[in-house]
């Protein structure tokens, strides 16, 4: 028995499925721990009172009714993009071309606003914007999907490259449509006529986006969970062999799913250009095509959980820019805090799936005796 102290101090063992209450308990604990660590880091690095910094974050997201509305609007846009990527991800098709698909959707609606804005009735312009932006996003999704289906090319590279093409196209049209001439950018489109501006609903310019995001959430959930298409997507994602075995045309599913994914990204582009900014720039997406990848993964591809995860990201983001101005800290410090919080949230998944078993105390005592 003397030698048994060679037993490892701890070892890792898989857990069974935990009850929901415990799973969320672990997550809440992770967030609390993250806040504590952030507090320590803040005090050490800046000397500021962490409570005040946290207050600043909340202030940034919900400080005024306008700030609150903008927070929710941003959540809605990020949510739509994340939902757009989700069908592709469920199929294990790593669409990281959200940026490009959004830009193309935005470019299409900008084109409608600029070229048709004063020539056609407004309702028709908006209808055309919807159709063309969804179509443009879908085409941008279709191209990598086609190559993947036909020649099994790597979709990650192809979708990524398509982003750069989209950015260059937008840059080109910025020069073509620049307004006023020589400014090198497109100003607010149709500022006087408001032609092609998406309508306000219930007297609020924010509600349309939020409303659409909720519809898309519900739609994607139903599509993935209950429709035959959704089922095919899951089977193809899990095993192409099995899909072929039951007669599913894998190529067709890949192309169809990417059309849906790209079209939803195009919708986000439409909202950004036609509903929110009323202009287009190469940076209008703000990297959300990539952020959405994280949002979708964090939510484990569950549309409803995505509401939470996109909220979390936007909340941290908006809070971060607030504290960087009020406390005179630069944006990088805010990013450090965001990083710490995400680290804890992602890291806690490990403790949900595994438990750590320490060396049995009783045996230790046995040895001492």
């Amino acid at each position, binding site marked *: *028995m003397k*030698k*048994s102290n*060679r*037993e*490892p101090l701890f*070892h890792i*063992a*898989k*857990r*069974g*499925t935990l009850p929901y209450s415990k799973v969320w308990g672990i997550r809440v604990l992770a967030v609390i721990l993250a806040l504590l660590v952030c507090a320590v880091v803040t005090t050490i690095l800046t000397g500021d009172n962490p409570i005040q910094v946290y207050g600043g974050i909340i202030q940034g997201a919900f400080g005024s009714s306008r700030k609150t509305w903008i927070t929710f609007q941003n959540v809605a846009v990020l949510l739509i993009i994340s939902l757009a990527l989700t069908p592709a991800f469920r199929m294990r098709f790593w669409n990281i071309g959200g940026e490009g698909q959004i830009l193309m959707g935005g470019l299409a609606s900008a084109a409608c606003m600029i070229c048709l804005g004063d020539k056609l009735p407004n309702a028709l312009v908006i209808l055309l914007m919807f159709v063309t932006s969804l179509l443009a996003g879908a085409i941008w999704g279709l191209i990598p999907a086609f190559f993947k289906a036909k020649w099994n090319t790597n979709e990650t590279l192809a979708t990524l490259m398509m982003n750069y093409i989209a950015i260059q196209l937008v840059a080109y049209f910025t020069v073509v449509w620049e307004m006023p001439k020589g400014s090198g950018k497109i100003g607010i489109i149709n500022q006087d006529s408001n032609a092609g501006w998406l309508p306000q609903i219930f007297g609020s310019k924010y509600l349309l986006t939020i409303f659409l995001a909720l519809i898309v959430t519900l739609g994607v959930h139903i599509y993935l969970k*209950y*429709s*035959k*298409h*959704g*089922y*095919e997507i*899951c*089977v193809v994602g*899990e*095993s192409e*062999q*099995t899909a*072929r*075995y*039951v*007669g*599913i*045309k894998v190529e067709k599913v890949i192309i169809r799913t990417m059309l849906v994914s790209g079209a939803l990204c195009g919708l986000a582009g439409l909202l950004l250009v036609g509903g929110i900014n009323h202009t287009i720039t190469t940076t209008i997406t703000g990297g959300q095509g990539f952020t959405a990848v994280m949002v979708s993964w964090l939510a484990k591809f569950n549309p409803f959980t995505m509401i939470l995860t996109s909220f979390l990201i936007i909340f941290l983001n908006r809070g971060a820019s607030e504290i960087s101005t009020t406390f005179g800290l630069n944006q990088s410090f805010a990013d450090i805090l965001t990083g710490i919080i995400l680290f804890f949230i992602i890291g806690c998944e490990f403790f949900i799936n595994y438990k750590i*078993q320490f060396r049995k105390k009783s045996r230790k005592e046995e040895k001492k005796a």
Partner: protein
Amino acid sequence: MEQKIAAVSLKNITKTFGPVVANEKVNLDIYKGEILALLGENGSGKTTLMNMLSGIYFPDEGQIFIDGKEAVIKSPKDAFDLGIGMVHQHFKLIDVLTATENIVLGMEGKLNLKDAAVKIQQICEKYGFEVDPNQKIYDMSVSQKQTVEIVKVLFRGANILILDEPTAVLTPQETEKLFSVLRKMREDGKAIVIITHKMHEVESLSDRVAVLRRGCYIGDMMTKDTNAAEMTNMMVGRQVSLNIVRPMPINPKPRIKVDGLTVRSEDGIVKLNDVSFTANSGEILGIAGISGCGQKELLEAIAGLQPAEAGSITYINEDGESEELLGKDPRKIADLGVALSFVPEDRLGMGLVGNMDLTNNMLLRSFRKGRSVFTDRKAPRQLAEKVVEELDVVTPGISTPVRRLSGGNVQKILVGREIASAPTVLLTAYAVRGLDINSSYTIYDLINKQKMKGVAVIFVGEDLDVLLEISDRILVLCGGSVSGIVDGRKTTKAEVGSMMTLIGGDKNNEEK
């Protein structure tokens, strides 16, 4: 008995995976100079127990003694240091490296391939292995790969050798060769543990058998004092009958006619060469052959998954109308009204989706039904419940992902789903691979019931004893060509075995 030294002694070993208890208070001794057969049904914890010995898992409770001293095995390296080596069911070799490179992989110290090759040769000569140290793994047959695995553990000085279902992929001749090597090792004083489901192997090879049931140690006995029926009863915990019935086919009519079928793989290698045969309704057509000589391609071609270069596959229905199946995908074949069921070799990679639950796996065959854009999960749920009940599937519930179930239960779900669609043709590939004896007989029984219903069954098997017992006719493949078709009631194991290695069989060697 008493003076024998226990090379390994397991005391009160318990291992749980979440709520699942894989091993509970297992006590087991393994002696030097002895071959121990470890028996148990699928999911009874044999592999888990051995994995703890080889450092892959760590026991929750209990102690392991090696040569009388308590040992703590935290990693496979610890196991090697204690002289324990395990050959896994799925080979752990790197295809693009040579035998020598694979064998020295992960060893500490200076890399000296030449010396290693010499040492490998010595080991091979000592025990009678045939390995070319410089051959790449991808050029090797399954049995050569297994030999490399065994040499690998011997090279590291293993005195305690664990083999997890080593014969599952071997031909009878290769199995015999392996056994003679293992016997030599026993004479050399090594302790050998073999996990297998084949009773005749247990009887011919092992000295002692130990039985596990549902994670608990049931008992051990000397092989010479027991028999297959007794061992099976111990494993299952109740009386089971070990006879495969073979009723005469009732009114057999041609159902599937394969004519001049030639299939090339994507690399242009001929996988099937001018294969012609007829499968009749109400009859089991066994297909024998060394693994990889065209069985997979043959079944996949019939199921519409494998394009062919030449030939035809004709389906003839009850009324004598015929349809060409070649060039059609599974969906088109189903649309023609051909009720074709296929139990593929790779259950979780092709037949089922491991991460989906039972209901969703049942849905695979039926999700297209109806014109609604939504799936109907009611019928599959009922089917899942029916399969679980009728085939005694051990599962926590129908919403458990199938990959969590043990091999036998996975196979029951697959076979259950495939026969639920009332097929007229049933293709099965290695239907009982990795299944314990009780599950195997359940599957044989199911297949026989289909035959009695008038289904044309094509049964690809690897266990010749079973093929000879269950098949009405046996088609022997050899290197992608038909070596011959024999009557299952009249042929012998020797005849089929020689046909598997030589086209038409070697008549002169038959006496041997």
